[in-house]
C-alpha cells in the first residue's frame, strides 16, 4: 500500500458526476503530476482532499491512517497543504502576517509583529527566498510575488502532502525555477508533492510520476518518461461519444464581418483575427487562457485597447448596448448571473435585449412582444408552461435556450457563443448546433468557444487555440483535430 491513498472518491453536483470512483496514490518523495482536460475532475479531487468539498463516498489515508478532511482546518492539521490557483491573501496585511495567518488564533495574538517578521525571515532563509520583505504590505506587491507568498504560506508549518494547483501560472520564470528546486528539495526530504499544471513541459520536467484523469476518474498512471507527449495527450482526450453533430458544410463567404486587430488588456496579449460571413470560427484552449476576456471585450463588457471593425466600420465597444446596436450578441459564460434575470419570467427575459423594438408611442406593445416571444419559444422548443413562468423554474437546458432566444431576438449578425453546451443535455446540444448552422446559412457568423474539443472539430471552419492570452495556433481544414487542439492548449505546437 502506498503512503498516501485516496480510494473510491465519488462526488456529484446535481446530475453532474464530477468524480466517479476515483483513485489516487503516491509515496514519500514522489512528485505526482495530475493531468486532465477541463472538467476531468482534478480540481474537485483536490477540493475534496483540502476539505473544501465533501465527497459523496471514498476514503483518504496517509501512512495507513484515515485522514480527517471534513473541513479545511482539519485537513491542514492532518498535514495536508494546498496552494490553490485563486489567491487568498489578505491584501491589507503584511507578507509575514499572511504567511502565518493559518496559525491558531490563540498563539497568534501573543506574537508581536516584529516576532512574525523574524520568523518569516528565518523561513525565507530556509527556502532560499531573498526577494521578499516580510514587513511589506501585500497590496503593494505584483501578482507574481503574491503567488509566491501563497506558496510560502503553505510551507510555514509542518506538512506531509503539498498540492500545487496551477501554482506556476502567474510566477516569473525565475520564481518558477525557484519553485522547482524547492519541490525537488522537499521530495528529497520525503514529502509527498502533487503538481497540477496545464504546461506539459513543466510536468515532464519536474514530476517523477504522472496520473491522468478523464471524465471524473483516473485512467492512467505512468512513471517519468514512460509516456510521450502524444501519448499523454491521447490519454487526456480519450474517446468520446459523438454523432449528434450536424454534417459539416462550408457556408463561409469572403466578406469579413468582424475584423479584430491587436486587442489587449490585462488578460489579452494581442489578439487579431477576421470573422467571415457564414463562418463558425472556433476558439479553443483550456479555460482561463483569456477566452472570457476576449468575448467580453468584443461585447463591450471589458476594457481593451486595439481596433474592432464591424462590417468594415470601426467601432469602439464601450458597453454591451453598443455591441447589440452593431449586431453583436453574446451567450455568456455565466448563464445565471450574466445571461438571465432568473426571477423574471421567460417572456421578460426573452425580450430583455430587444425591448426597444416593441415600444410604440412610448408604451410597450404587449401584443407584438408576446407574438415575438411565442415564436421564439416555438422555434427553439423551449419547454415552459406559459411564457409568464419565472426562468428560474426551468431546467438548465431550457434556461440556456432562453438565453439563446433572447440573443436571437436581437437579430444579431455575429453571435458570440461562450461554452453554450455546459450543463446541457445531448438533445439540446444537437438543437443548438443545428441552430448555429442555420444562423450561418443566413450569411451571419458565429464565434464559438468550447472547452469540449470534439465540438470544435465538428462545428468549426477554423479554430484558434488560446494560450496565456494569445492565439497559440490557428488550425484549418485537416489540421482541426482534437489532438492538435489539446497539444496547442498545453503550449505544445500542433503537428
Amino acid at each position, binding site marked *: 500500500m502506498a503512503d498516501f491513498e485516496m480510494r473510491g472518491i465519488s462526488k456529484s453536483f446535481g446530475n453532474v458526476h464530477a468524480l466517479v470512483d476515483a483513485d489516487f496514490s503516491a509515496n514519500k518523495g514522489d512528485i505526482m503530476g495530475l493531468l486532465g482536460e477541463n472538467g476531468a475532475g482534478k480540481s474537485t479531487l483536490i477540493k475534496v482532499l483540502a476539505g473544501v468539498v465533501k465527497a459523496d463516498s471514498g476514503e483518504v489515508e496517509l501512512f495507513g491512517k484515515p485522514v480527517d478532511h471534513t473541513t479545511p482546518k482539519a485537513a491542514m492539521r492532518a498535514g495536508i497543504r494546498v496552494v490553490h490557483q485563486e489567491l487568498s491573501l489578505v491584501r491589507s496585511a503584511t507578507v509575514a502576517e499572511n504567511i502565518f495567518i493559518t496559525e491558531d488564533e490563540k498563539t497568534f495574538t501573543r506574537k508581536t509583529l516584529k516576532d512574525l517578521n523574524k520568523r518569516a525571515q528565518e523561513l525565507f532563509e530556509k527556502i532560499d527566498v531573498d526577494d521578499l520583505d516580510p514587513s511589506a504590505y501585500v497590496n503593494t506587491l505584483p501578482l507574481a510575488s503574491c503567488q509566491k507568498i501563497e506558496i510560502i504560506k503553505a510551507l510555514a508549518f509542518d506538512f506531509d502532502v503539498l498540492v500545487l494547483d496551477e501554482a506556476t501560472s502567474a510566477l516569473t520564470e525565475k520564481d518558477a525555477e525557484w519553485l522547482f528546486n524547492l519541490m525537488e528539495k522537499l521530495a528529497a526530504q520525503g514529502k509527498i508533492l502533487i503538481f497540477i499544471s496545464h504546461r506539459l513541459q513543466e510536468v515532464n520536467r519536474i514530476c517523477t510520476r504522472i496520473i491522468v484523469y478523464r471524465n471524473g476518474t483516473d485512467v492512467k498512471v505512468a512513471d517519468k518518461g514512460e509516456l510521450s507527449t502524444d501519448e499523454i495527450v491521447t490519454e487526456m482526450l480519450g474517446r468520446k461519444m459523438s454523432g449528434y453533430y450536424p454534417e459539416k458544410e462550408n457556408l463561409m463567404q469572403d466578406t469579413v464581418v468582424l475584423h479584430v486587430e491587436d486587442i489587449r488588456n490585462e488578460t489579452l496579449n494581442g489578439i487579431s483575427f477576421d470573422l467571415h460571413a457564414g463562418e463558425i470560427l472556433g476558439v479553443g484552449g483550456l479555460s482561463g487562457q483569456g477566452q472570457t476576456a476576449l468575448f467580453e471585450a468584443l*461585447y463591450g*463588457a471589458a476594457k481593451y485597447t486595439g481596433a474592432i471593425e464591424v462590417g468594415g466600420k470601426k467601432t469602439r465597444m464601450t*458597453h*454591451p*448596448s453598443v*455591441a*447589440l*446596436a452593431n449586431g453583436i450578441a*453574446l451567450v*455568456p459564460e455565466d448563464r445565471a*448571473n*450574466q*445571461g*438571465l*434575470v*432568473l*426571477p*423574471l*419570467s421567460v*417572456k*421578460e427575459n426573452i425580450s*430583455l*435585449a430587444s*425591448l*426597444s423594438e416593441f*415600444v410604440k408611442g*412610448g*408604451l*410597450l406593445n*404587449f401584443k407584438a412582444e*408576446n407574438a415575438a416571444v411565442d415564436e421564439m*419559444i*416555438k422555434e427553439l422548443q*423551449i*419547454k*415552459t*408552461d*406559459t*411564457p*409568464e*413562468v*419565472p426562468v*428560474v*423554474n426551468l431546467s438548465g437546458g431550457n434556461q440556456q435556450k432562453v438565453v439563446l432566444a*433572447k440573443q436571437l431576438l*436581437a437579430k444579431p449578425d455575429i453571435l458570440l457563443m461562450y461554452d453554450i453546451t455546459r450543463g446541457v443535455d445531448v438533445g439540446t446540444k444537437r438543437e443548438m448546433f443545428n441552430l448555429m448552422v442555420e444562423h450561418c446559412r443566413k450569411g451571419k457568423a458565429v464565434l464559438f468557444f468550447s472547452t469540449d474539443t470534439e465540438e470544435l472539430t465538428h462545428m468549426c471552419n477554423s479554430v484558434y487555440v488560446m494560450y496565456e492570452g494569445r492565439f497559440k495556433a490557428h488550425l484549418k481544414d485537416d489540421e482541426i483535430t482534437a489532438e492538435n487542439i489539446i497539444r496547442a492548449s498545453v503550449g505544445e505546437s500542433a503537428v
Partner: protein
Amino acid sequence: MFKKEPNRLPLPNITPDGKRMFISLIILAVLLIATGIVMPSMISISRFSSITNGQLTVLLASLGQTLVLLIGGIDLSVGGVICIINSLAAVAMPESGLGIILFCLGCVAIGLAIGGFNGFIVTKFNVQPFIVTFTVNYILLGISQLILGRDGGAPAKAFTKVLMASFGPVSLGVILVVFIIVMWTLLRRTKFIRDVFAVGTNAKASAMNGINVVKVKLIAFAISGGCAALAGLWRTAQLGSGSPTAGNALTTPTLTIAVIGGTSMMGGIGGMYGTVVGAYILRIISDLLTFLGTKSFWSTVFQGIFLVATVVVCSVIDRKNRSK
C-alpha cells in the same frame, strides 16, 4: 408543455409581486371590517377623502421610495426633501397664479436635482445608497433650518385653496390617487419600468443585455427626489404652514408603506398599487389604535411589529417561489 393560448394575466410580472399585493389587500380588508365593527361612522366617502388628503404627503414620497427600492436602492433623504420644500413654500411662494405654478415647478426641479445628486454619487463612486442618502438628508435638514428658523409661515392662499378643493364629498386628493393608479398602469408598459425591474433583480445581467444600468438608477433616484418635493408641496397646502422638521418623521413610514405594499427591500419586486394600499393600511392602523384609546407611542410599536410581520411573510413567499 407550452400551451398554444396561454392564459395571460393583464399585468406583466404579476407572479411574485401579485401575491405580495394580495396579502396587503387582505390586510386592508380585515382592517376595514374591524373599523366597520368598532367605529361604523368612519366608513364614509367624506371620511375616505379626509384620510386620503392626510396620507397623500407620505404616499407621494412613498411612490419615489418604491421606485428606488425596486432598483435595489434605498432613499433616506425623502424626509429632508420634504423639509426643504415645505420650508421654502411657506416663506417664498408668490401670490400670483402663474407665480405659484412656476414656483411649484421650481420645487419639483429642486427635488429632481437632489435625487439626481444622490443617484450620481451612488453610481459614479459606487457608494452604498444607504450612506449617501442618509448623509444628504442631514445636509437638507440643515438647509431647511436656514430657510425657516421655526414652524410657521404661510403659502399663497390660492395654492391651499386649489389643492384642498373638493368635488362634493370627493377631495382632489382622491382624484390624485386615482391618477397615480392610472399612471402606474401606463408606466408598467414602458421600457423604463421594465428596465427598473431587471436592474433591481440583477444589475450585472441587465448590463450584459444592453441596459444602461447607471442611467436607470440615476433616473430612479431623481424621480424619488421629485416625488418627495411633491410631497413637500402637498404637506404645505394641507397644513397651510411650514416646518423645517416636517419630513423628519416621514422617511421611515415611506419604507413601511412600500414594504407593507409588497415591495421588496432587495429590489426587483413590488409596485405602486401595493404602495397605495400600504399608505391606507398604515393610516387605518393608527386610527384604530387611537380609537381604542391607546397612547400614541403604541401606534409606533404596532406599526413596527406590523412591518416585521409583513417582511417575514413576504420572505417566506419568496422562498417558496424560489424552491418551486
